[in-house]
Each structure stands twice: as structure tokens, then as C-alpha cells.
């Protein structure tokens, strides 16, 4: 096996719905500088730079080229990764492999999204609208598929609308404690229950916003981390699973909850989490993991994934919420950062899961810090049904 590795620095920008004051390079530069400061390093100490974002949302072809000014990649090695919504975790896992390969002393991973500049609608339509499958049903099927998952959760009695709303209230409480979160206003149960109904039972407040912001992480192999970092977050293991079964763009019938495979994202999340547990001897994740950061594109997904990552039995996720187990002060807090429903700068979202988990492990969470975190789990998902699970520990 390669070297063991650690996250030794994390930097985030404040996420907002728009940032017309900064260019792409300014935005990325801020996150990188904060990560360097956090790691107490200078840009000269960095060997390689891995970047990621959704280029069509940005309107930049080969964005890593212009970004050299922001990432400091001049004459350094590096590459660019793009896997849709999972981009962030894919960048992170690529950075992990770089750090573990033994060829690099330090690795900088940068993921960001600046959605305020482009026509996200048009870019999204580019995914959903196939030239031949031209009824535009693909993009429009995303929300219905989400609603369908929600309906399924309700029908099989896994959660109630009130429980899901309570979960959303908790996320907003967490976000209000996170200085970087986008939707950081505390909301009430009543507000959530009466927010705009998109497609029954999916409400506006249950789904993620579109944000602008950047996230950077610095990684190092054990030999380096032990020398330069007093409290590294050790990256123990990571697993990516891809469930791509898109027969044709614009046609996503097979993604259905009631379809033959069930919801494919959930399938991938479960497979990645379970093999991660298996490889690392975790038999009861609810007891053995102290905090979870997951990619909750909607609160309904979050509830479904409690089952998928084996925090509870099937149909028990409601109880998990009811008992407050997954809340900030609960037995196993999930998304103390406020999660993706609070902050969603697409390219960065999935990396924020890893970064926020690292912040928890390093005890740097400030008002969102969970007490006594020894083991953290970060789950990224998105894109063409990718899922990546990462296990972090305070001690090796």
C-alpha cells in the first residue's frame, strides 16, 4: 500500500448566492490563501494542484488554465477533474491518491463554483435535453424523481413530513453556526411546512440552493504531515462507486424509486459506504462514527441515506430524527455544517463534505464543533450517479 495521508489545511470562502465583486481567480485565490494559512504553509511548499468545477456553469473551457493565477499552480504539476455533482469528492480522492503515491510532499485540492455568471438553466438543459431525445423530459424529471423518492419515503412510513421539516430546521440551526454557510438564517418548523410546494410532497425549502464559493484543502503523506502539522485529520480510506445506468440522456426512467434498481444514487451511496465499513472493520457505524457530512441535495435524500449508510434500519430514519440523534447535539450529528441544503456551490459541495469532516476531526469547528470527534464519515454524491465515501480519523 501507499503512504498514509492526512488533511493538514482547509480553506473556504463565504458562500453566497452571488459574488459579482470577485472574478474566478479572486474567488479561488481567497480559498487557497485561507487553506495555506490554516496549514501554516506558503504556496512554495505546494507540489501539485488538483482543481475541479463544472466548466459549463462557469463558461470556461479548460478553467484550470486561467485559474493558475488563483491556485498558484505555475510550474507545479496538476490536473483537473470533473464528475458533475461529485466533482468535489472526485478532486479530493484524486488528491488523496497523489498524496499517497509517494511522489509529492504536499497536494493542494481546489473545488469551486461561480454560478452567478452563467445561465445555469441553459447549462443544465444541456444535460437534460438530448438532441434526439428532444422532449426535454430529462431535466424536468429531476424534480419529479426527487419528489418520487419523497413520496416513497412517506408511503413506506420511513418519515413524516413533520420529521423532515424538523431535519431542515436542524440544518438551518447548524448553518447559522457556520460562518461560511450560504442559507444561514434559522427557520421554523412552520416555515418549512408551509414553504412553496414544488411537486408534492417536495417543498422549496427541502432542496439545495445555488451558491457561489470555493473550497481548498491541503494534503500530505504521513512522513510530512507528522513533521509540519500538530493536528492532522488522517484520511483512513475512501471508496467511490459509480452506478451509471443512463440509457440515453434525457431518459432517466431507470433512476426511479419504483424502477427495477430503486433509486440509483441511494444504491451507489450504500455500496460505497458499506465497502468502506467492511474494509475498515466498522460493524456498527452509528456507534463507531462520531460525525457524518453527507451530500444532501434534498432533506428527503438525507433521510433516505441514513438507511443507506446503515445509521438505522430500513424505515427507521424518522425515528433517528424524532429522537434528535442526528441533530447537532445528538448522539451522531449529521451535517453540522448545514449540509448541501444550506450551501450548494456545485463543484465545491462534495469537497465541502470532506473539508467540513476534517474540520470536525481537527476540532476547528468553533460554534458548529461536535464534541470529541474521533472518527468522521464524509459522503459525496452526484453527477451521473457517482458516490464517494471518505473515512477520517483523529488518530492513526
Amino acid at each position, binding site marked *: 500500500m*501507499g503512504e498514509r495521508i492526512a488533511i493538514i489545511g482547509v480553506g473556504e470562502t463565504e458562500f453566497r448566492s452571488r459574488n459579482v465583486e470577485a472574478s474566478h481567480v479572486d474567488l479561488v485565490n481567497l480559498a487557497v490563501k485561507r487553506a495555506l494559512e490554516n496549514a501554516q504553509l506558503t504556496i512554495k511548499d505546494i507540489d501539485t494542484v488538483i482543481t475541479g468545477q463544472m*466548466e459549463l456553469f462557469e463558461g470556461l*473551457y*479548460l478553467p484550470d488554465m486561467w485559474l493558475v493565477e488563483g491556485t498558484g499552480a*505555475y510550474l507545479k*504539476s496538476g490536473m483537473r477533474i470533473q464528475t458533475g455533482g461529485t466533482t468535489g469528492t472526485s478532486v479530493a480522492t484524486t488528491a*488523496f491518491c497523489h498524496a499517497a503515491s509517494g511522489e509529492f510532499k504536499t497536494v493542494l485540492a481546489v473545488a469551486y463554483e461561480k454560478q452567478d455568471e452563467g445561465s445555469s438553466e441553459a447549462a443544465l438543459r444541456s444535460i437534460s435535453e438530448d438532441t434526439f431525445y428532444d422532449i426535454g423530459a430529462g431535466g424536468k424529471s429531476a424534480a419529479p424523481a426527487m419528489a418520487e423518492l419523497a413520496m416513497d419515503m412517506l408511503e413506506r412510513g420511513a418519515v413524516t413530513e413533520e420529521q423532515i421539516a424538523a431535519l431542515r430546521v436542524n440544518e438551518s440551526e447548524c448553518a447559522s453556526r457556520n460562518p461560511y454557510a450560504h442559507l444561514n438564517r434559522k427557520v421554523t418548523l412552520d416555515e418549512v411546512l408551509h414553504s412553496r410546494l414544488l411537486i408534492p410532497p417536495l417543498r422549496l425549502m427541502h432542496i439545495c440552493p445555488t451558491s457561489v464559493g470555493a473550497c481548498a484543502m491541503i494534503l500530505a503523506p504521513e512522513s510530512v504531515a507528522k513533521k509540519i502539522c500538530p493536528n492532522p485529520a488522517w484520511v483512513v480510506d475512501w471508496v467511490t462507486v*459509480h452506478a451509471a445506468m443512463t440509457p440515453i440522456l434525457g431518459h432517466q426512467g431507470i433512476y426511479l424509486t419504483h424502477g427495477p434498481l430503486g433509486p440509483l444514487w441511494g444504491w451507489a451511496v450504500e455500496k460505497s459506504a458499506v465497502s468502506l465499513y467492511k474494509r475498515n472493520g466498522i460493524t456498527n457505524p452509528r456507534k463507531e462514527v462520531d460525525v457524518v457530512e453527507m451530500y444532501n441535495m434534498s432533506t428527503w435524500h438525507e433521510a433516505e441515506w441514513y438507511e443507506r449508510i446503515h445509521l438505522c434500519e430500513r424505515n427507521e430514519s424518522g425515528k433517528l430524527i424524532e429522537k434528535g440523534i442526528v441533530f447537532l447535539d445528538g448522539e451522531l450529528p449529521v451535517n453540522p455544517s448545514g449540509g448541501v441544503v444550506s450551501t450548494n456551490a456545485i463543484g465545491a459541495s462534495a469537497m465541502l463534505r470532506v473539508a467540513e469532516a476534517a474540520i470536525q476531526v481537527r476540532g476547528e469547528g468553533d460554534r458548529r464543533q461536535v464534541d470529541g470527534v474521533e472518527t468522521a464519515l464524509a459522503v459525496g454524491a452526484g453527477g451521473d450517479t457517482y458516490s464517494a465515501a471518505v473515512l477520517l480519523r483523529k488518530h492513526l
Partner: protein
Amino acid sequence: MARRVAVVGVAQTKYEAEKVHLSNGELVWEAVERVRKNTGLGYIGLVSDKPSIDKIVSCSEDFWQGRAISDMQISMEMGVFGLDSTKVSSDGIQGVYHGVIDIMSGHHDIVLVVAHRKESETAGSVIENCAFDPIYVRPLGIDFLGAAALQAQRYMSAYKVTPEQCAKVVVKNKGNAKNNPYAQEPMHLTVSDVLNSEFLCEPIRALEAKPVSDGAAALVLASEEVAYEITEKPVWIKGIGNAYDAHYLGDRDLAKCEALVAAAKRAYAMAGIAHPVEEIDVAEISEGYAYQELLWYEGLGFCEPGKGRELIDRGVTSMGGKLPVNPSGGLLGGNPSCVAGLTRVVESFLQLRGEAGSRQVTNANTALAHGWTGPCGQSQSVMILGI
């Protein structure tokens, strides 16, 4: 190198100006099917008792596919269901680089790398324009051709490189392409044929630029532990290196290629190469335009800065020379960008195994593969392979 990595199988499609009969998925399948046949490999989860592919790296770009998450189109053809997979949005050689790093990290054993592009489907000039700073440069409408011509002019005037010397690169590469059944534009040319073709962007002439091309390539990497179970003749990755240059053309001295020097230095250090021309037997480099081959010679340390023209004059890089460059015909012989870098590794593999047919270089033991992306080669990647 911590853990040795080998290339154990390769495949490519024929490169053509237009593959109208195939969808992107069907194009990728052609390459994937061949590489699976060549290696006899299946996928983890389907075959349990034999070594199987456990990771898939694809290379494609959203702009060129006209849609976000461009790998969605080809995921089933690559066979990603239930596997680890990622997408490198860069030249194909960066995908190989990713695969090598994956295996070196100890997290993966067998990695399938795939690159594809149908350049014929859209207008490259519009896309390439989007690679420039949107504030200062993009409004000018410049593309990679314009940028390359600026570099060519600067390079040729700095080192007194003549148009004839650039034309010789075209004559050599398109001539070499005649020996490559996969090449798109095998041509028998003379220097004056090249110099008589019209200017695209002075000083670059039509025959001196890479043709528009469609195609795909695939390759399988394996760790030392399993490589011999797959093939008797693995080709080892001895060194890898990549680097970024500054973005603005006006910030760089375009007659030099700092990033390529840095990338080559890393790859050579890893492979223990001190004298590239002596130690490397064959090189496959990505020359999108004729002048680039001469400039890249210098960046790769085949000669001193400004002496690239002497290598082509003396025939050092011709077939039968001391260091044959691009026996396959290179990019001038016709490769789509993005696939180009992967094709260089594929061709290096064939040379080192002695399977390159009539383009075979004799006694090839060490090969160099090179790829670039970005305006004037802003991102460079170098790989050393050996047996």
C-alpha cells in the same frame, strides 16, 4: 517509484475526419472492446477469480460534447456500473497520469483509461476561445491557432528557424503516417508542397496544422503484482511529470516552454534519465502544429534551446535516426485533441513491445510520450516508458 506500474494492453480506433456512422458511445465501445479482448480482462464484481478492472478513468470535455458531465454519454460502454470511476478534463495523457497515481497510491490495481472525441461535430475555434481569460483575451476571439501562430512567429524569429525546417516536420510525420494503419492523413509530401499550401494564420500553413479528427483510444494499467498475470510483456511506466505554465501569452517567453522543461525534469528524475537523446530510443510527442515539434524537442532536452531545427536538418528524429520522433505520424498524421496524448502512450507501448508493424523502431527499450493542452501548451505532461 514506490509501486511499479505497467501498461498491459492498448487499443485505438482508426482516426478519421468524420465518423458520422457512430455515436460517441459506439466510438468508445470500439476501443474498449478491443482493449478488453487484447488483455482478456473483465470487471471487478463480474469476474471474481481473475484480476479485473477496478477503476475507470475517462478523458473528455463538456464543451466538446456540448453537455455537462460529458462522461454520462459513454459510461455504459466503459462498463462503469458498480465501479470506481472518475473523469479527467484534460489531454488523454493526464488520464494515464491519473491511473498511474491511482495504482502507485496502493488503492487500485487495474485501471482502464479511455479518451474519445469527435472534433467533427462542432467548431473547435469557438471552444478554444473559451479557454482564455474572459476579461482580457476572450473578447478578441482568439483561438489556439492564433495563439500558436504568435508562438511560432516568436520562436522562429528568436532562433532563426526557417519555414523549410518547419515544413520538414510535416514531410516526416505525414510520411511516417503511411506506415500507420490507424493514421488519418498519410501523405507523401515534399517541403515545397508544404510551403505551397495556403496560410491559415501566418506563419502556420494549412499542412502544418493538425487536421480535424474523430477517434478514441483505450489503455489498461496494472500494478506490478498483477501485470504478469495479464501479459508476458508488460511495459513499465518509468517516470511521469506534468506542469502548468503561466496563463497569459504576454507573460511567457513563447520561444521557451518552461512548463515542458519542468514536466520533463520530473519525469526524467523519476526514470533516472540524464541524457535523453542517448537514453531514449523512440519518442511520441504531441505536435499540434509543425513548429511545436521543434520547440518541444528543446523543452524535452533533446537539444539546447534554439537547436531543434538542427535535429530535423540532421535527420536525428527521422525513422532510422538516433531518436525517431513520431513514427506513428503524430498529431499531423491525424489524432483528435484530448485523445492525442493517450495515443502517444499507446504508440509508445506498441513500439516497446515490438508490435508497431511497419512503423517499428529497431531495438526500442525506452520510449517517451508527451501531451499538452491549453493555449500554446500551457499544461504539459511527459511520460517515460520502458521494458
